[in-house]
């Protein structure tokens, strides 16, 4: 291997990161489904010749850890028959995938006959067949209900597409032009990745390229190890829950024990619930992603996004549990389990590094899937509105939680109302923040996000994946819990409005509306120590009511001017003795 000057190394490394972003842009720009092009539920990366990830586009962090597992199974099966022009496809959670909706497209990249890298594009697809529109449903009980399952297969062999595979895929999905269109978007991303790698090698030579990528992985490992080595050694456990198992049973226990010893970190999920009946079972690859994400997020250094990150981490997740499921578990809705694992890992890390960890946020996106059929240009076609709603952040050690922002585990976006209404027979009647829904604290938890959909024509399937109605987002250091979630289904006739379960597959009629309120973020620190001026500002902006200002924060305001009554506030706070009000009791980790 040649010695490489620092400028060249820096440029190659930046160019790889830029290539990851360029791949992501190409995928975004050519995608068809709203879940990819608006919610941005996809990721792109480049791996070295051995399948170790060398760059990731700024996309979904939770996909980061899945790539090594996917590449390992690809090598097992095809390690000896990778050829130029080959492209692979896979979505099987029991063959290195995450869950049925996530399709991996992998293209080996060759230079003068030698394999030098891989381009990887992973996207969450709108529909891959299965029991219900959108494929994902909390009450699926077997992987076969989750949809069309593809172990690693060659989609292109030496540049030639396997038409039978395309035909089979087209025949097994509800909205073929979107699914096939998004697969092509993934192919476009891989093509861009290949072009970027070729450009780099053409300029710097293949040996320099290899040296730079090997250096990059080692460099990342050194950074991560060095940071963990600076943390205090210790063991901290935390338990959090999902309300139910997708079929009304529950709750589902997520337990994690974090051990920091020297420059290594172990996350042990022993004690978590056995594999559940519903579709929220996580694969080991996804569980590993969560740990990497949480550890990465509390680090103070800027760490390149690549496989070197994983080397100092050890994950223990017993097979047959909700965090490492086995055949034939359903897993299409396992996203929420990932978010809850992240909450638990953060909770445990808060014991180690209290000044770096926020209180719990909304606990992951809510999925709302509305799907039906309609006549279009003389043909009966399926439509599916797949909403991935993002929530809000918990209060932080030095500032409030952000009101209405994607979960840090999921750099996702929202579907513009005007786009949704232009494409689907749905009207969105409300989208905003909810007063008094953030956990009280010295630093307030973010407010809940609410959204309401009305079905304008026909009957439709309605699937919801939400959580945290019984187990509210936790506060830290004396902060209160965030507001819990709710689902209401209203019928235009005189029937009473239904309160729906957090996880449900049901039907929606013409004129019905669904209202969903996401959970609010937990608070951080004693609310009675919150700066009264901040409380007054929240009241002015109708984020906190006058009543809550008094009851939760011990702050008395003039109802007309909203000026802080300093004297009355001091008296009220003194009477509370600086202890939080029972209405928002903090829940500490075990």
């Amino acid at each position, binding site marked *: 291997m040649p010695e490489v000057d620092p*400028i060249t190394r*820096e*440029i190659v490394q930046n*160019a790889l990161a*830029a*290539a990851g*972003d360029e791949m992501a842009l190409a995928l*975004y*720009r*050519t*995608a*068809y489904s709203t879940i990819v*092009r*608006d919610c*941005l539920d996809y990721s792109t990366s480049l791996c070295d010749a051995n399948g170790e990830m060398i760059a990731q*586009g*700024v996309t979904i962090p939770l996909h980061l850890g899945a790539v090594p597992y996917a590449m390992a199974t690809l090598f097992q099966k095809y390690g000896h028959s990778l050829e130029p022009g080959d492209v692979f496809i896979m979505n099987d959670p029991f063959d290195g995938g995450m869950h049925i909706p996530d399709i991996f497209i992998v293209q080996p990249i060759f230079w003068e006959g030698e394999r030098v890298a891989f381009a990887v594009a992973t996207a969450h697809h709108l529909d891959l067949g299965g029991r219900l529109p959108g494929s994902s449903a909390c009450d699926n009980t077997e992987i076969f209900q989750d949809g069309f399952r593809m172990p690693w297969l060659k989609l292109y062999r030496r540049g030639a597409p396997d038409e039978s595979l395309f035909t089979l895929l087209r025949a097994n999905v509800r909205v073929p*032009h*979107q699914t096939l*269109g998004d697969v*092509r978007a993934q*192919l*476009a991303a891989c093509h*861009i990745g290949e072009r*970027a790698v070729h*450009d*780099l090698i053409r*300029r710097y030579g293949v040996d320099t390229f290899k040296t730079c990528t090997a250096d990059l992985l080692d460099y990342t490992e050194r950074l991560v190890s060095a940071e963990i080595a600076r943390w205090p050694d210790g063991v901290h456990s935390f338990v959090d829950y999902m309300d139910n198992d997708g079929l009304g049973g529950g709750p589902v226990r997520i337990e994690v024990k974090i051990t920091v010893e020297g420059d290594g970190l172990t996350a042990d999920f022993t004690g978590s619930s056995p594999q559940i009946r519903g579709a929220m079972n996580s694969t080991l690859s996804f569980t590993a992603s969560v740990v990497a*994400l949480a550890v*990465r*997020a*509390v680090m103070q250094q800027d760490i390149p996004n690549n496989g070197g990150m994983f080397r100092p981490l050890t994950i223990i997740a017993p097979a047959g549990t909700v965090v490492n499921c086995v055949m034939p578990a359903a897993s299409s809705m396992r996203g929420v389990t990932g978010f809850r694992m992240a909450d638990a890992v953060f909770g445990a890390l808060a014991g180690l590094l209290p000044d770096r960890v926020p209180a719990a946020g909304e606990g992951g996106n809510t999925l709302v899937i509305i799907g039906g059929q309609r006549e279009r240009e003389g043909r009966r076609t399926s439509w599916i509105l797949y909403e991935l709603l993002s929530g809000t952040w918990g209060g*932080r050690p*030095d*500032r409030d939680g*952000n009101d*209405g*922002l*994607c979960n*840090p585990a999921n*750099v*996702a*976006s*929202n579907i*513009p*109302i*005007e*786009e949704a*209404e*232009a494409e689907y027979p749905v*009207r969105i009647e*409300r*989208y*905003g*923040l909810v007063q008094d829904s953030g956990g009280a604290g010295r630093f307030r938890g973010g407010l809940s*996000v609410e959204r*309401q959909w009305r079905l304008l024509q026909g009957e439709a399937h309605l699937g919801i994946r939400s959580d945290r109605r019984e187990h509210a987002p936790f506060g830290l250091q004396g902060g209160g819990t965030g507001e819990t979630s709710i689902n209401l289904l209203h019928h235009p006739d005189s029937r009473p409005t239904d309160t729906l379960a957090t996880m449900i597959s049901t039907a929606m009629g013409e004129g019905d509306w669904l209202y969903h309120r996401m959970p609010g973020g937990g608070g951080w620190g004693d609310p009675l120590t919150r700066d009264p001026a901040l409380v007054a500002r929240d009241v*002015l*902006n*109708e984020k906190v009511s006058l009543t809550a200002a008094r009851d939760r924060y011990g702050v008395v305001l003039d109802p007309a001017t909203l000026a802080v009554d300093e004297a009355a506030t001091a008296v009220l706070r003194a009477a509370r003795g600086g202890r939080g009000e029972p209405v928002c009791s903090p829940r500490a980790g075990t």
Partner: protein
Amino acid sequence: MSRETRLRIGADVGGTFTDVVILDDAGHVWTDKVLSTPPEFEQAVLQSVARLLARLEADGQAVTEVAHGTTVATNAVLEHRGALTALITTRGFRDVLELRRIRAPQMYDLFWEKPRPLVERYLRFELTERLSATGEVVTPLNRDDLAQICARLQQAGVESVAVCLIHAYANPEHEQIVGNTLAECLPGVQVSLSHQVLRERKEYERTATTVVNAYVRPVMQHYVGALREGLNEQGVDAPLLIMQSAGGLTPAEDAAVRPVYVLESGPAAGVLAALALVQRQGLSNAITLDVGGTTAKASIIEDGQIAYSPEYEVGASLSAGNRLVGGGGELIRAPSIDIAEVGAGGGSIAWLDPAGGLRVGPQSAGARPGPVCYGRGGQAPTVTDANVVLGYIRPGRLADGSVSVDLDAARRAVHDQVAHPLGLDLLHAADGIHRIANARTMRALRAVSTERGRDPRDFTLVAFGGAGPIHAASLARELGVRRVVIPPLPGLFSALGLLFSGVEHHDVRSCRLSGDALTEAALAALRADMEHGMLAQFAAEGFPADQVKLSAYADVRFLGQASEIRLPLEDGRPRTDDRGRTTEDGGGRTKDELPTTDYRLLTTLHGAFLAEHERLYGHRSDPDNPIEVVAVRLIGRAGAPDAQTLFRPVHRPPSAVRRSSGLLRSALGSGGHACPDPRRPHSRD
């Protein structure tokens, strides 16, 4: 100066300096550089113009055009010093502005703070009304609601109102009613209607852009009004034109109504000037670096083309268009030259963080109080002070001579506030400040080069702005750039660039045309709708239709895709086909029945789209998949002068400074290296 001589004025107002140039018919240039005069930025311009006219012994009538670039609007956004602004939106959507697109600009940052919205929640009002995606009224506008909102706006004393109703791009009727009502009940309050600012689908993008427009509109209106008045007092009644973010000038009256299109006014002029310079030198690849008093800005010219961005953010820690993720600043969906900007300029203040680390910026001493060495009240050491200590800037008079650089004051400030607390000697402390400023500037340079996989070694660095030449050589060395070009008058380069741009207007109409609905006639109707208004606007500005060059573009995608490819629309006007019929409506016909011209246009468009899609993404998607046109855009240009004169030798230097050595020696570094004297251009005779 003969009576017949005609003069054109270029005036560029930055956070620290105001630069004014006058160009005569023969290509002679006169220049003036003075400190900016916040908050009355127009004062410096007016004083400079008066001084230059006096020096030329010319009267105001000789001036035929005043072209202006200004950061007044951007600064108002950055510093949250715009007008007290309210937002009226459809019931149920009060928080669209604050929720943004939900996304954070980076992964893994648990301490990221979403920017505070320009209109806080208590000033965001919901109005009962609703339109469908096709523009039909679902819920009629409730006038009682509107009356109540008016009363509350009066009570709150707002200065400006943004109105963005759901689906207003499809039917502006409700917004027009709101606009008329507000005009009646709140006279004097400026109202920005979303369909007039940005007639495009996507509520957040339209709301955010309209809100920024409303937020800076009173500031811009006041500024432009004061400037106009001041010019009139000097007998200058020539048109006042403002540079837009995407290049091209627009009349001041238009800029005052739609300031969101001129936010990046000053930076755009510099890039245009750099492009002209690069083309003249026969180069095709350049990185431009513009370092002023407050910020450093970088942009890329590749294959002779400026990079544009359809939207960008103001106020993100690193502002750069065309990046994958947004959310860090105020979103502006308006075309702009793609510029990366960081808060590192000559005025950036050096300070020590609580851990004893040396930091530079982003706070700037600006024009007031300015660097310590200017002796105008500045107390905190700045990058300029460090450069003076290092010998990169000579003591003595600067700019128009009104600023005097005091070496001892600079040395004292750097010593007392940086060197002494850190236990460093003076020169090492000053060098540290200089190098940290470079490192910050490097972020902008990388954002447009290495971060996009572009190797800076393939590019020429064109450095300008007051402090650009001082930092260019060491930045170039670090980037591996082999050639640095410093234009004559680097400090006045942007002002000069203003004089080489014509008047330009942009307009857009959202649509959804595919299948049978996609016809030449449909495209022509959209174009005609815009063309009429645009030609009327040009006519009012003194450009008859035959002097206006109109270019139409279509935003095309495969039906159902996320984003579009912009393609030139060769000719979207109705025209006579081979059989002499006017083709007004091609709807419902099969391909064979379509008039030939129609068929050709759409075939060309389709072919161009497939080719471009393949070039960009390596595949043609499903070639049978229909294409969809989602917007038609019109750009009109008129009156662009010849750029030849831009680089003629300077005539009659205005500065009192006459001679210098031309080269200074750095007091530090490997044996000292030559660096340019920023006054050098003034010293030519």
